[in-house]
């Protein structure tokens, strides 16, 4: 207990005594942590946008305009049995006509052509949403199975799934890509930071060469020699993390006001504040690991010598 207390005091003392090196190391860590935080926030924006797109994806099952009410009810009941289904909404042929007229209210030629037909040319439809975007292909495959709808298959006009399948696949690959690229960038910047902090610490430890030599000659344990350097590194990590965490509060607030046009109601500031504990743990943990590993490697060389 006494040894730990001394190691902690000595670590704090070293931090204060080597203020220039301490400030340099903290500055390097702040840059790395800012990049890591930016990656986390960028990913959140990206995922939010993708979720927005995904929420707009659905399957439209168009029925023939002469489909009977009995057929409509039977098909709806069948669709409700799909395990991957989130919701199924029925749109009557009348509602479809109203929507069409509304969509083309400024297009006189189209509305004139519709009037010339004299009857409602649209059929009713079902809008199907799945729990997961990966389930859409399974739903379509099931509906296309002859046994699923049986005799009611003749009432199906078309399923507009093929048009959006590629979009769904793209969305899925983009989510995966954004995750992978985030991890790779994080690892790259952590390694760069590790190398820079290692070299800074190595140069700083040269000032302690005599001190380490004397410690060894009086029979100090490895913990007593390494400990203060590791504590000093922990102080670097904690201070750099705290600075970065606090700095990103006004930064995210500013970004939110500037990105209202692109992101709508999505607030980066709200995301940051609601995840600040989680993000803090990532930043403090990663910076302490980078700083202490750098110190450990740097001081190990002198312990061998």
């Amino acid at each position, binding site marked *: 207990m*006494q040894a730990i207390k*001394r190691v902690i005091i000595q670590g704090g003392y070293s931090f204060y005594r080597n203020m220039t090196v301490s400030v340099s190391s903290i500055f390097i860590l702040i840059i790395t942590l800012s990049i890591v935080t930016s990656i986390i926030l960028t990913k959140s924006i990206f995922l939010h946008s993708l979720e927005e797109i995904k929420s707009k994806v659905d399957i439209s099952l168009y029925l023939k305009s002469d489909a009977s009410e009995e057929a409509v009810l039977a098909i709806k009941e069948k669709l409700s049995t799909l395990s991957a289904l989130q919701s199924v909404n029925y749109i009557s042929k009348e509602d479809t006509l109203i929507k069409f007229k509304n969509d083309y209210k400024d297009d006189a030629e189209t509305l004139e052509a519709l009037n010339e037909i004299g009857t409602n040319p649209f059929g009713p439809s079902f809008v199907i949403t799945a729990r997961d975007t990966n389930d859409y292909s399974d739903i379509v495959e099931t509906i296309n199975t002859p046994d699923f709808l049986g005799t009611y298959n003749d009432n199906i006009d078309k399923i507009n799934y093929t048009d959006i399948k590629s979009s769904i696949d793209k969305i899925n690959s983009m989510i995966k890509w954004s995750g992978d690229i985030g991890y790779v960038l994080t690892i790259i910047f952590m390694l760069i930071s590790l190398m820079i902090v290692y070299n800074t610490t190595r140069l700083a430890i040269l000032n302690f060469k*005599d001190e380490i030599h*004397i410690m*060894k*000659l*009086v*029979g*100090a344990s490895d913990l007593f020699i390494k400990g203060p350097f590791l504590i000093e590194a922990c102080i670097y990590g904690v201070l750099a993390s705290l600075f970065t965490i606090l700095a990103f509060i006004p930064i995210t607030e500013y970004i939110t006001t500037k990105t209202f046009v692109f992101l709508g109601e999505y607030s980066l500031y709200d995301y940051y504040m609601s995840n600040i504990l989680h993000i803090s743990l990532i930043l403090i943990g990663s910076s302490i690991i980078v700083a202490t590993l750098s110190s450990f490697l740097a001081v190990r060389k002198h312990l061998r010598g």
Partner: protein
Amino acid sequence: MLYFENVTKEYAGVKVLDNINLSIEKGELVSIVGHSGAGKTSLIKLLLAEEKPTKGSVSFHSATIHSLRGKYLNNYRRKIGVVFQDYRLLPGRTAYENIAFAMEAAGKTDKDIRNDVPHVLDLVDLKDKMSHFPHQLSGGEKQRVAIARAIVNRPEIIIADEPTGNLDPVNTYDIVQIFKKINDLGTTVILTTHNKGVIDSMGKRVITMEKGKISRDDKNGKYII
């Protein structure tokens, strides 16, 4: 207590110690003399387990020094106090803190540190300068702090490598008297020096080294090169 058996040390094929056989008993005061390059410092480095012999063995009681690892090596080093020509004090710490540092590193309690540091500073006549930093002390005073640091953990052996090399005659005399006092209290003292006056005034065992070999080993020796 300390035994060198057929010890040879080579650096890049060049012999700096050549088949050394030597034993030092508890309570002895031994001076090792010789020109620069005679092998004195190499001998000291082997004693401090900073170097390993190319051939032969160096033992402390029954333990082979150069085979010690980890806590066994740390325990061995806690039984040795070292004094260097250039003092090697920590510049950012006061005289008190320099000595306390050696005790902390050796795992002594805060109570022991509070009791022993003023006492040992009193022994080297520096009690009134315990708050001084090394740059505020003279050469002789710095060396006395270094000696205080070396003896504070009550080592079995004090090894001093040219301890008077940077001192004037008055301070040299004072330092030699301190070493004699330490030896009188039962601690084994090994010192290397070039100073004829120091050797002749002590009238103790003198080992003379030349070109990596022991050329003389006199019980009540004089400086003869």
